[in-house]
């Protein structure tokens, strides 16, 4: 899945799939693995708080990540910059990757990203040599700050995490996409494949999907559907849409002979 002539460059890696996936909320590790494979994704994020190195090889979540996928540890559960930084260090020590999906969510109800602590953590992690992919509010100025801090991407939310509500932040995403000098990955809230297509059509460089796949009645089929929609949206964006008009306009204008 994906277009090898249109790679996405993130932290020195060229990715052909523009769909990134997560590992939470699945009914079990086996179905998770099958869905990850069906998604065609190359990057998979894993919550470090779910990883149990004492159970490695005995059914831990990492045992079910298909070989060859790029592991993107995330700091889910961190409530401030300090915890996120220390968790990222643990993740790097445990997995060997400098990649980290930075999540700082002090409010367990909304799991809304904390813009202040996220920026603080990003600055420190970049200084420590991490490739930082920050989950953040769909805030154009915050995304500017994160980019200036040296983040490898920005990852603004499409809607509240886990909500499956779609691209509720579309207006802000359009601004972020227009100004960004790093890849924009729309993360959180995309509920159906057409939401992913919409984000890609708007110009996002990639999308990250977890809940919509994990809680679908058939996660494997839904993973495949998101892969197709992500690619379709990307192609649609590259193809360039025609102008939107208020009223119908004939494909063969009556006065065409005058030109």
């Amino acid at each position, binding site marked *: 899945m994906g277009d090898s002539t249109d790679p996405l460059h993130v932290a020195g890696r060229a990715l052909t799939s523009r769909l990134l996936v997560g590992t939470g*909320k699945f*009914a*079990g590790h086996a179905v998770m693995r099958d869905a990850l494979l069906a998604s065609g994704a190359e990057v998979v994020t894993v919550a470090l*708080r*779910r990883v149990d190195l004492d159970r490695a090889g005995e059914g831990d979540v990492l045992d079910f990540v298909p070989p060859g996928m790029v592991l993107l540890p995330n700091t889910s559960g961190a409530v401030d910059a300090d*915890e996120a930084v*220390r968790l990222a260090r643990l993740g790097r020590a445990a997995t060997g990757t400098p990649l980290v999906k930075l999540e700082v969510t002090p409010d367990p109800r909304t799991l809304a990203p904390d813009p202040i602590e996220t920026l603080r953590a990003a600055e420190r992690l970049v200084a420590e040599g991490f490739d930082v992919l920050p989950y953040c509010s769909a805030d154009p100025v915050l995304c500017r700050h994160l980019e200036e801090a040296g983040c490898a991407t920005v990852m603004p939310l499409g809607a509240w995490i886990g909500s499956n509500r779609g691209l509720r932040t579309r207006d802000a995403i359009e601004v972020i996409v227009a100004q960004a000098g790093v890849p924009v990955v729309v993360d959180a809230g995309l509920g159906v494949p057409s939401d992913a297509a919409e984000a890609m059509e708007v110009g996002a460089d990639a999308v990250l999907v977890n809940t919509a796949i994990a809680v679908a009645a058939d996660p494997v089929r839904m993973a495949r559907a998101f892969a197709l929609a992500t690619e379709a949206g990307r192609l649609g964006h590259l193809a360039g849409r025609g102008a939107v008009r208020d009223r119908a306009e004939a494909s063969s204008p009556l006065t065409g002979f005058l030109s």
Partner: protein
Amino acid sequence: MSAPPGLFAQHLAQLPPPVVGDLDAALARPSLAALPTLLDPAALPRLEELATRARATTLQRFGRAVRLFAPLYVSNACLSSCTYCGYSKGLDVARRTLTVDEVEAEARTLVDRGFRHLLLVAGEHRLEVSADYLVACLERLRPLVPSLSVETQTWSDDTYARLVAAGLEGVVHYQETYDRARYAETHLAGWKRDYDRRLTSTERAAEAGVRRLGIGALLGLSADWRADVRAVAEHAVWLQNRYWRTEVTVSLPRIKASASGFQPLVPVSDREYVQALAALRLVAPEAGIVLSTREPAALRDGLVRIAVTTMSAGSSTEPGGYSDPGGAQEQFAVSDERSPAEVAAMLEHAGYEPVWKDAFPLHVL
């Protein structure tokens, strides 16, 4: 001297009387105000619909995953007299307070069985289960266990802060019943007799930086179990709003007969119990719901599909009961006697991932 009413007690006192309204409207737009309607006997014929709504809410918020934990009873010594409890002061039962070494042995047994979330449980004995003792237990266990919580007597603000510094993640304090008169009838003497000290403890724990708060009521302790469900729901949402960094879980164990000779005041039927948990899920969608092994296996298996997000498994309610059983009185008899592995297998069969670890060890951060 009794503690003054805290902020939530004031909120509860100002709550309007329950109003049972239109069930269709309550199901369409569940809210705290609509909870009495969802809990009303008139809603029971539509229990399947209620359960279906609750299931969808649970799945969206929590996914197909259930967190597993084990209670680790460290002591059944107690200086409080509570009419319903097998540990109540003065009861002629075998008492035991584990040494810190014995607590570690119990924890190692539980870790070997897969658990990474442990709840240290004790009676109320501030000499045998002192703050110093708990700090020593936490410091001993935290290299072994990523998530440690306590269910003990209530403490002062300073002590909660000390426990947090020692590695404590969660505190569980059930109010048992929110009905002041019934509380006074059932909590006869000791530290726990003070209703307001009990109720403010969750506020003080949250202020001290506890990350997970567990609250609950013993259904059947008060004659009006619906009022207690409503109070628990109000309490959960109030805590979430006021202490927005704190994760709140709720539990509604049905009280059982105990070594004290206590019999529940009113039986809460299985159908009513499912109604209570489903309604609670709809009006407090972000609260974790905890179910212990007090309930029988078939009911637990069913409730996981509707509302429950956290379960204990393979529990012993006797201090030392995992690695050295037989030496002390248990608090209550468990109903679901399956092993942790059997409960995990049930969850997988039902299409849920048993989540053994859902925390990072704070001490290594």
